[in-house]
């Protein structure tokens, strides 16, 4: 019985690990190196998928926060929080990989480019969201306000992007490196690998989120048990 349980837990891990192995084989062995940007272009196979997953995380967090406010089902709050935690991890990866790519290609680690700026600000809003959840005493009020913060962050996103985009039009980023962003990325192999990487990262994201969700559920149970113990002591 126990062995079936562990087998069930192992299957998703094995699937994601297999996808990761195939993905890295595709990136480093199968796909040809892009002619203009060279080896550094390969970071795109990590950067674009993690950026995609970060954006999905924001949308999922906002949807489940809304559902929590609507239905007041704690499960939705736990999903929103777990997604935000994993999204934050992928957001950090997106910022770091973007900077590693930008330096040799754009000649600078950071520019005022709209997508970069929006990603950074959203990252900071979600850091504040996670911090809030850690600061606030557990309970319905914390969950409710956390959902409000997530929704406010999501509502703010288009305004942040629009403002950053117009700012960029007024202050174009200085691109002083020998290549530019769109140089030569046209091979069909590149798109195949990119597509596979997006699927792999989405699977990895789902797996990590399912882990954080289970940890969150266990934490909530622990908090509940603690509160019951207090109540029992209080009555005695």
């Amino acid at each position: 019985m126990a062995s079936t349980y562990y087998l069930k837990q192992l299957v998703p891990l094995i699937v994601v690990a297999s996808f990761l192995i195939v993905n890295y084989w595709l990136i480093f062995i199968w796909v040809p190196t892009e002619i203009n940007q060279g080896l550094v272009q390969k970071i795109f196979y990590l950067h674009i998928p993690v950026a995609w997953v970060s954006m999905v995380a924001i949308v999922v967090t906002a949807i489940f926060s809304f559902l929590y406010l609507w239905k007041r089902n704690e499960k939705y709050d736990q999903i929103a929080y777990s997604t935000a935690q994993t999204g934050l991890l992928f957001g950090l990866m997106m910022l770091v990989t973007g900077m590693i790519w930008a330096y040799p290609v754009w000649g600078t680690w950071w520019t005022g480019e709209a997508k970069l700026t929006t990603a950074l600000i959203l990252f900071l809003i979600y850091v504040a969201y996670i911090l809030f959840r850690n600061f606030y005493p557990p309970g319905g009020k914390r969950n409710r306000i956390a959902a409000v913060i997530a929704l406010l962050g999501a509502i703010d996103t288009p305004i942040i992007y629009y403002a950053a985009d117009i700012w960029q039009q007024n202050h174009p980023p200085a691109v002083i490196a020998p290549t530019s962003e769109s140089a030569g990325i046209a091979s069909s192999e590149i798109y195949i690998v990119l597509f596979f990487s997006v699927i792999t990262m989405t699977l990895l994201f789902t797996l990590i989120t399912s882990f954080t969700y289970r940890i969150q559920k266990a934490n909530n149970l622990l908090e509940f048990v603690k509160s019951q113990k207090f109540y029992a002591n209080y009555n005695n």
Partner: protein
Amino acid sequence: MMKILKIVWIIAKKDLVTEFRGKDLLISQLVFSILTISIFAVISTSFVGTIDRSVLAGGVFFTALTFSGGISFSRSFSSEYEKGTHITLLVAPIGNEIIYLGKLLANFVFITISALITLPLVAVIFDALQIFSPETILVVLLANLGFAIAGTTYSAIGAGLKSFQLLVTLLFVPSVFPNILAGVQSLQMIIDGQPISEFSQWLAIMAGFIFIFLLASLLMIDLIMEESI
């Protein structure tokens, strides 16, 4: 409608009278702004003669205003919790949105007073006297309203927490980012002598921010201020 406005004014007046008696918040907000401006002023002395320092004026002004505003807004609802008066406010026969609007009005007055003192300082220190124009009033008032709306909402969120100041500032600063960009760019265009039509899209961003954030805050304020577990 008049009755609602009257109650909003009573709540705002309560905060304003309390603050004008003690002046703690206003003074600390001003000192923080002046400190920020001083730091930028000292750093920018190394650029004297190499760049036109007036290009920094908009950025310095809004940096000072954002951070000092973030700190002072955070106290808006927390002060009620410290005194225990939040219960009185919550049991009063008025909607939470009216309490919110009253606090918002008081915060708007506080940040506008702070802006009135810091703006001339920035203009003088950073050689940006062109900033004294009628358009600046519009830009500063719009930006301040945006700051006050977001600040009051996050103040309600952080109320009752021990580390409310840190948390409110952490939530407030990234959220008002579009407002900061719009304010800085508009002021810079005023300093460059450009007509209002040139920065109308920035004014539209500030107006959009105000509309969306105010609407969202009014819709969700009951969820924030609800006391049930």
